[in-house]
């Protein structure tokens, strides 16, 4: 169900993604002919590419299909990310905490479906309180802080933060914005990788993620800001957001929060002493290894756009619970 009809920008960006995916094998071919693709790299790139062929439609499809599929799709993604996080940290053995985080995620999703921002905001505090209080009932003070902290962190990262990304679906410009965010967040990683290879020298954070360079981070910031700023300009044409200062700010926010999300997950993995969060996607590792950059983009852009009048959330509020 789509209340607004498909936005031309949503279709345009999707067509762009499809064209890029179709062109990728040609680029591989050219690189191989030029002798710049060693066999090991080639097979790694092919595995990643094949995963993208499945992932991209799975991600963009629900966003195009309308408000409800988009919200449910983000919920499924968040649930799978939480599952990986819980299994990597050992939080999954704490059944009660895990159950509260899961129920919190379901309630948040209901609040988004209902377009009830007040309940969505209230849940952020209430679920955290519930995690802190219900953890008492195990009567095991040893490890209480770790259990509670892991539960709260997981709820904030996958429930609340990804929930903000989901909330865009209630806006008439939600679908094109969400697809643009997904595209730019993923390209942000690619830009960082390519700029890092080209002119990256000084390491960004050698202990957290030794392969990242300051050059890569800056290159990604410039390229992603340009791309996302352009897409936002096309999507928000004629609204208060369509001003250079906002376009640059939004692009920078996306690029920085994207890179920070990546670093946050690297820190978590380093702390746990594991390389990947799972083995769900061939060539990429776990889902979280792929979607870590998306986590903080939602809240950052949501509140920026809401503050400067970019979000109209034009559906009637409280679709199910209102009178």
């Amino acid at each position: 169900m789509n209340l607004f009809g498909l936005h031309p920008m949503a279709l345009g960006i999707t067509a762009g993604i499809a064209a890029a995916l179709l062109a990728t094998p040609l680029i591989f071919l050219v690189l191989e002919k030029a002798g710049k693709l060693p066999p090991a790299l080639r097979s790694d790139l092919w595995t990643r590419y094949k995963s993208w062929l499945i992932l991209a439609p799975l991600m963009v499809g629900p966003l195009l299909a309308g408000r409800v599929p988009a919200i449910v799709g983000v919920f499924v993604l968040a649930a799978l990310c939480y599952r990986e996080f819980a299994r990597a940290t050992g939080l999954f053995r704490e059944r009660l905490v895990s159950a509260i985080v899961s129920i919190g995620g379901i309630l948040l999703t209901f609040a988004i479906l209902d377009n009830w921002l007040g309940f969505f905001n209230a849940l952020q505090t209430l679920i955290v309180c519930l995690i802190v209080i219900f953890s008492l009932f195990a009567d095991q003070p040893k490890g209480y802080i770790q259990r509670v902290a892991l539960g709260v962190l997981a709820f904030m990262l996958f429930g609340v933060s990804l929930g903000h990304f989901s909330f865009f679906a209630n806006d008439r410009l939600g679908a094109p914005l969400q697809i643009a965010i997904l595209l730019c967040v993923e390209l942000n990683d690619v830009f960082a990788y390519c700029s890092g290879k080209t002119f990256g020298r000084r390491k960004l954070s050698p202990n957290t993620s030794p392969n990242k360079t300051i050059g890569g981070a800056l290159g990604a910031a410039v390229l992603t800001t340009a791309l996302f700023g352009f897409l936002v300009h096309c999507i928000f044409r004629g609204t208060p957001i369509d001003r250079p200062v906002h376009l640059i700010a939004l692009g920078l926010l996306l690029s920085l929060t994207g890179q920070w999300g990546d670093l946050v997950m690297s820190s978590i993995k380093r702390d746990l002493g594991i390389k990947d969060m799972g083995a769900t996607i061939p060539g990429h590792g776990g889902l979280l290894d792929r979607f870590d950059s998306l986590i903080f983009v939602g809240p950052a852009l949501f509140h920026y756009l809401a503050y400067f009048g970019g979000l109209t959330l034009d559906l009637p509020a409280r679709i199910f619970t209102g009178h």
Partner: protein
Amino acid sequence: MDDWQYRPAGDLHLKPGESLRSLQREAGLISSLTQTAWRALVRAYLRGYHRLRIDGAENLPAQAPFVMIGNHTSHLDALVLASAMPWRLRRSVFPIAAGDVFFETPAVALFSAMMLNALPMWRKRCGSHAMQELRDRLLSGPSIYILFPEGTRSRDGSLGRFKPGLGMIVAGSSVPVVPCHLEGAFAASPPGARLPRPLPLRLRIGPPLTFANLSNDRSGWQEIATRLEAAVSALRDSKS
């Protein structure tokens, strides 16, 4: 009380299909719910349809790890032994099931993992490596194994010879082994029967045995098999 530790799931780096068949598999929230629902269903069925009677439940150790063994005449056996376990131990129970029956196709493997919480034993290619993995898991975490040392279901209802493989899991350790004898399962659901008949079942649970002073080698394993076979025979012949 131990400190809380970051301990990733044992099957974290396995693909979804591999994880179902892994001996390191650990149940999450959803599996716990499906297993608890399945357990409630099976208990109601065994009590209602088969009027299951359990003697000697007080012989079960208060906490994991331990191993529960018994005679094997039907697919009901593992369900009966698992349902004898008290509620608070329910999450630690792992029936050891034939890989070629319970883990061959993806759908059946999913059922075995999500409902039964079974771990696979591949009978044709069961090397010492798999036994060692089972032993490590038993000694390092709170696990309870249910297994049948005859290695297969009896085709005539009588008690077969116990194979020494179980010894590899417990020899030289202080993990208790609880011998059980189930009566009536062969009549209710012999191999090849399609639907179980509503005949009564009686489970006798004997006092646990430990094999800490037996060596973890062939002679120790054989001795364990002999002692456990005798214990199960004695339960079968007891008149109480």
